[in-house]
């Protein structure tokens, strides 16, 4: 591109101004990248939720327990392929800030329900053979350097203050990039025997697989109807809605993220716009010289747009790069945001925003340059 040094030279003309503008664009895009990763962490689970799974919880709240006996009744409801239960264990490993979820499950049926958890067959066999056996996800295993064969002590304030000791028999991986591999699962039979008398036979919530995802809504109604007027009425939702419900407790995250970013980008638009219009205003005479030499209006329009787009793409690219590096290091909170990552879609959107920023801030100065009457411009020199 033979015009490159003309465009580059103009950008480098006021180094301090260009650097400051670049930095503000960069900061905006770092912020964009990190907010996208946070948003992904909070609501990304919705997209990963199984379309054929329903979650059944107590109608009053998720904290209220349901009878274990519901499982058999659910499996008899038309349209239900399988049902498994989970229970919030709420245990603490060494320190409350080492948070990760634990739940007692019935191993074989549970792993069938959630095929996104990949456990090697021999580890599955070991789990079935070990009453105190537990499996943890890759994320948590890496975080605490757990190895198979470790004894993991967990305090449970909910199920009796005593320390529960589990034997780590397996580490599962996620089938997809975004799959949450932070939870620890252990055997329900061991849990049920060992817990205090008052809780026996009660579980936290159920996951149901429906035979036909298209029928999910009807099946959900049937399930809730089945347990109507019983002491423990239920509320059944698609898994996506269930995850969304969690996310919604933190407010409408997407909206908050969008409004913060809108404010940031509006500011950046003003900053870059003023840089560009100044850059063109202070060289109207030079633009006149270029026109006198024979450069066309279209070429000058192109030069100014190229300059603004280069500025925005450079700042945006560096910002997105930094945000990506940051996100690639994984969850910055050490467990609160297991799905924290910058998705390719958000990266592409970021580049598109940078390009839009370049075009929008360049177009008006570029039109000024283009409409400049050459004889008038030369008088200004």
């Amino acid at each position, binding site marked *: 591109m033979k015009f490159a040094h003309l465009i580059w*030279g103009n950008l480098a003309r006021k180094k301090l101004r260009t650097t400051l503008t670049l930095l503000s664009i960069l900061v905006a895009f770092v912020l964009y990248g990190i907010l996208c990763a946070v948003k992904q962490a909070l609501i990304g689970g919705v997209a990963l939720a199984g379309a054929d799974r329903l979650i059944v919880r107590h109608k009053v709240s998720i904290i209220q327990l349901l009878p274990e006996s519901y499982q058999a009744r659910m499996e008899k409801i038309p349209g239900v392929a399988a049902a498994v239960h989970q229970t919030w264990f709420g245990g603490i490993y060494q320190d409350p800030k080492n948070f990760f979820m634990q739940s007692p499950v019935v191993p074989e049926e549970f792993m069938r329900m959630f095929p996104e958890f990949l456990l090697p067959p021999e580890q599955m066999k070991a789990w079935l053979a070990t009453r105190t056996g537990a499996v943890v996800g890759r994320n948590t295993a890496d975080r605490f350097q757990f190895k198979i064969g470790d004894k993991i002590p967990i305090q449970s304030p909910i199920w009796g203050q005593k320390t529960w000791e589990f034997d780590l028999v397996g580490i599962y991986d996620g089938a997809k990039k975004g799959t949450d591999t932070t939870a620890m699962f252990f055997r329900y039979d061991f849990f049920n025997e060992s817990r205090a008398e008052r809780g026996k036979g009660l579980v936290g919530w159920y996951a149901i697989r429906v035979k036909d995802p298209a029928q999910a809504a009807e099946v959900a109604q049937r399930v809730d109807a089945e347990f109507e007027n019983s002491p423990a009425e239920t509320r059944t939702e698609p898994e996506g809605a269930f995850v969304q419900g969690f996310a919604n407790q933190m407010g409408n995250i997407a909206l908050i993220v969008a409004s913060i970013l809108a404010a940031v980008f509006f500011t950046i638009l003003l900053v870059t716009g003023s840089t560009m219009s100044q850059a063109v205003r202070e060289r109207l005479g030079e633009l006149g010289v270029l026109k006198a030499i024979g*450069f066309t209006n279209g070429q000058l329009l192109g030069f100014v747009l190229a300059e603004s787009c280069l500025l925005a793409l450079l700042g945006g690219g560096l910002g997105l790069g930094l945000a990506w590096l940051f996100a690639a290091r994984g969850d910055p909170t050490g467990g609160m945001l297991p799905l924290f990552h910058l998705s390719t879609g958000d990266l592409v959107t970021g580049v598109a925003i940078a390009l839009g920023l370049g075009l929008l801030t360049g177009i008006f100065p570029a039109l000024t340059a283009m409409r400049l009457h050459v004889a008038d411009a030369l008088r200004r020199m």
Partner: protein
Amino acid sequence: MSQPQSNGSPLVRIDGVEKYFQRGAEKIHVLAELNLTVAPGEFLALMGPSGSGKSTLLNLIGGLDRPTKGTVTVAGERIDQLSDRQLADWRARHIGFVFQLYNLIPVLNAERNVELPLLLTHLTGAQRAKHVAAALALVGLSHRAKHFPRTMSGGEQQRVGIARGIVTDPTLLLCDEPTGDLDRKAGDEILDLLGALNREQGKTIVMVTHDPHASARASRTVHLFKGQITSEAVK
């Protein structure tokens, strides 16, 4: 008005040209019923008091502006009828400009400044470099090729400006007070250079100047007063 005709048809023919600018409701008449021809190979000096319309006339010859009335013909082409876009292409092919304030692009070094008009041609990078080197050698600045305008004296900058003006070998070289901002010595060097270009390369030059010393170098001098040609002298 009678013009000295060298061999056959003139290179520039200005016929019945009128030019006024509209400033609000006011019409500012700058050129009135002006006729002028420039023969190929001529070195014409345009003189006259400030505001007499010299730059306006030069702009019309160089296709930077169009007359309100009348015709401007350069090398057989009616340039007063060309569109903006056509004029830009026409200037790139036919005209080299030299300005009073040199008007180099400050962010480009000497050779990049000289190269600018060549960017509008189909020449390759290597061919452009050859032309640039030749033009810089002609103005005696080969050793300053990599230097930026702000590190050069006014006279050197103007020589770079001339190199830029002639690098495409244009039909016409138009200079608007090329020595107006230089001291006598640097000004003389520029005039020597223009004279040599005219004599040795046969370049046709139209030069606006206030300076009788400068116009003495030209082969013909035309005086403008209030937009009209009042006298001319042939050397």
